């Protein structure tokens, strides 16, 4: 219950910051660049446990944290992105950076009418299959489809699509399980 409240609070915070970032960007290119830079900062922080510990340590001053981040990312990311990270540090919201990036991606997808669909298949999808699938889904949804593919051998054969909350299961595994359930029910 407490965790749910904290999670919901994080989602709200992330949404507010992501909306602010969209307003900040003057053009689509700038917005894409902003997203890429933020994603790069986030990946760097995520990949280093020392940096995570350093940023979350209460005994280290915010200025020292800013100084270190400036040294790491200065010249590599835009000043706007660095300033945004400093704002998060000042407001003790650096932990929400990942959620802000996800929310920003969602906002961008909404803005550019992009639908992100996760396609999980038993084998790697060929580029033809990906194109065919994307085209089919774009025709159905009348949106640009961004496929997020993943391989899961436990599906045996076929594939599963996750579109928002909806799941379309075309795997052999689910068919076999369905047959098993039918046998048991009889």
């Amino acid at each position: 219950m407490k965790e749910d409240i904290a999670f919901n609070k994080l989602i709200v915070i992330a949404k507010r910051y992501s909306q602010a970032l969209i307003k900040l960007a003057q053009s689509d290119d700038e917005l894409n660049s902003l997203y890429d830079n933020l994603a790069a900062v986030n990946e760097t922080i995520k990949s280093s446990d020392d940096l995570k510990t350093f940023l979350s340590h209460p005994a280290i001053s915010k200025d020292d944290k800013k100084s270190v981040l400036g040294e790491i990312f200065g010249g590599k990311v835009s000043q706007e992105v660095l300033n945004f990270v400093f704002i998060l540090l000042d407001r003790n919201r650096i932990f929400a950076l990942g959620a802000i990036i996800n929310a920003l991606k969602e906002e961008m997808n909404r803005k550019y009418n992009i639908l992100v669909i996760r396609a999980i298949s038993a084998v790697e999808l060929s580029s033809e299959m990906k194109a065919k699938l994307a085209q089919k889904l774009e025709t159905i949804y009348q949106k640009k489809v961004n496929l997020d593919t993943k391989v899961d051998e436990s599906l045996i054969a076929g594939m599963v699509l996750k579109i928002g909350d909806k799941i379309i299961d075309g795997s052999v595994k689910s068919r076999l399980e369905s047959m098993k359930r039918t046998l048991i029910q009889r």
Partner: protein
Amino acid sequence: MFTPILATISETATEHVVEHGAHAAEHMSFAQYILHSNVINMVFVFCFIVWVFKKADVIGLLRSKQSQIKEVIAKAEEEKVHAQSTLQHAKENVKELENQVKTILLDAKDSAESLYSKIQKDAEQKVEEIDKNLEKMIDVEEKSAAEEVINGLSKEAYELATSKIKDSLTDELHHKYINNFIDSLDETKVK
């Protein structure tokens, strides 16, 4: 006490007899003399008895005794009446007791019959319940056993089918499955 009196009487009589005897010897015979003497004796005895009776209040005693006897008789009568009443009461009690015994016996019979009926009914119900429970238990056991068998069979069938499909799958078949799935997508399925 009587001796001086008798002696006095005797002396008087003797004197009288002597005095009179002198004349009697002259005028009366011996038989007459005896008769007179006896009569006098009788008078004396009678007087003596009257005196004794008066002195000792024999009549009063007799009356007192009679009164006591009457009282005793009356008391006895009362006791008799009381005893008869008690006897009557006892008889009534015995009769009542008999009735009570009869009532108790009837009640006991009724109670016993009712109890017997209740016990029999309860026993029948319990037997029925046990029968039902037994049937249910048998049903449950049957279902459980059937489920176990079906589950086992289903699991084995699932594993066998999975294994067979995996063995028979080629890249071509994989692509065919995926292409078929993509082809089957339509608005009703996706939205």
